[in-house]
């Protein structure tokens, strides 16, 4: 890895024909130039929802204008009964792309996969985390929603074992009020840590 992205040769090897090599190198350079896709904030993880003629879930006043525009456009076309699909009890069903989380160390990584919101307002999510140390007895990690990096309400707690840990948690909140997630650490007798991993 260098400042301009990973080494092309490490990625593709050296057994490609010259034409294919040049073709893939061009893509490689475009990827480096484009940079990472932005992480969608939770508010945009799903298309705007609509039921009947009423748009649901734009509680933030500054977004009211957009909501009204969208509601009018959608209602005018007799848009049907919303986007609720996916989590119907039973197993976890992820929707959309994974949302990566990063820590101060490259070895600490995590990703979040959201499922669909249920009728009660739950957003089940699958957290996959690697590289966090096991904590002593009584210690645990917590996933929190965040806004501008500042921790907000809890989506649940978990412990890790060496290797990769997967756990299903829940965000029973209006996600559009938040723009990301953080993971913090709790140790007995000590205050909550700052964010260890964040989106």
């Amino acid at each position: 890895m260098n400042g301009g992205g990973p080494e092309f040769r490490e990625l593709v090897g050296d057994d490609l024909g010259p034409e294919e090599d040049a073709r893939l190198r061009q893509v490689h350079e475009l990827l480096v130039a484009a940079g990472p896709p932005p992480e969608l904030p939770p508010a945009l993880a799903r298309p705007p929802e609509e039921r009947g003629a009423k748009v649901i879930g734009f509680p933030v006043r500054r977004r009211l204008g957009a909501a009204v525009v969208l509601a009018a456009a959608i209602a005018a076309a007799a848009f049907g009964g919303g986007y609720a699909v996916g989590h119907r009890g039973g197993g976890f069903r992820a929707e959309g792309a994974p949302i990566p989380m990063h820590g101060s160390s490259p070895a600490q990584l995590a990703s979040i996969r959201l499922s669909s919101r249920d009728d009660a307002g739950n957003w089940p999510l699958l957290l996959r985390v690697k590289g966090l140390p096991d904590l002593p007895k009584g210690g645990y990690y917590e996933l929190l929603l965040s806004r501008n990096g500042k921790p907000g309400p809890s989506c649940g707690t978990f412990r890790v074992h060496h290797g990769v840990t997967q756990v299903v948690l829940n965000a029973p909140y209006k996600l559009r009020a938040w723009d990301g997630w953080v993971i913090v650490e709790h140790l007995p007798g000590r205050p909550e840590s700052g964010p260890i991993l964040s989106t």
Partner: protein
Amino acid sequence: MERVSAVEASDGELIERTGGGDRAAFELLYRRYARSVFGLALRRLGDRSRAEDAVQETFASIWRSAKSYRPERGPGAPWLYAVARNAIVDRARARAETPTEMPEEASGEAGPPERAEAGWVQWRVHRALEELPEREREVIALAYWSGLSQSEVAEFLGIPLGTVKTRTRAALARLAEILEGEEL
């Protein structure tokens, strides 16, 4: 209501179906493009909250104007890019700003043509990434933007190094195919 028969439908087909009131097609377009629109809005507006609004407005505009799309005039991606760009520019103009003084010296930053070109490259690449199978997109993201070596990607995903290399090469080839297919 007509249903989208396959995820592989072209952007143009999805826009046409959206114009006909197909909600599933609209949702597929959203999944394909929400991230690209958000990236473009962030680049232009520099503010996450306003960029979120711009994404909402862009898709409202797509829903409203999809009927006006004419496939014989060009593929769907540039049409969507134009709709998004217009929504973002409108959002930028709507910003209540106090007049600023003109700089006395030329800025060292990229000018409008360079910024437009960079925005279009970013749009195309991010859009193409959305087309990759998840397992291929995952190795690309880890290799390019998480700072992991191929061995570390293999360890993180719990798969053999050879599989990581195969997926990476396949992903690059698939991206090349997608991007070549979009060239005008």
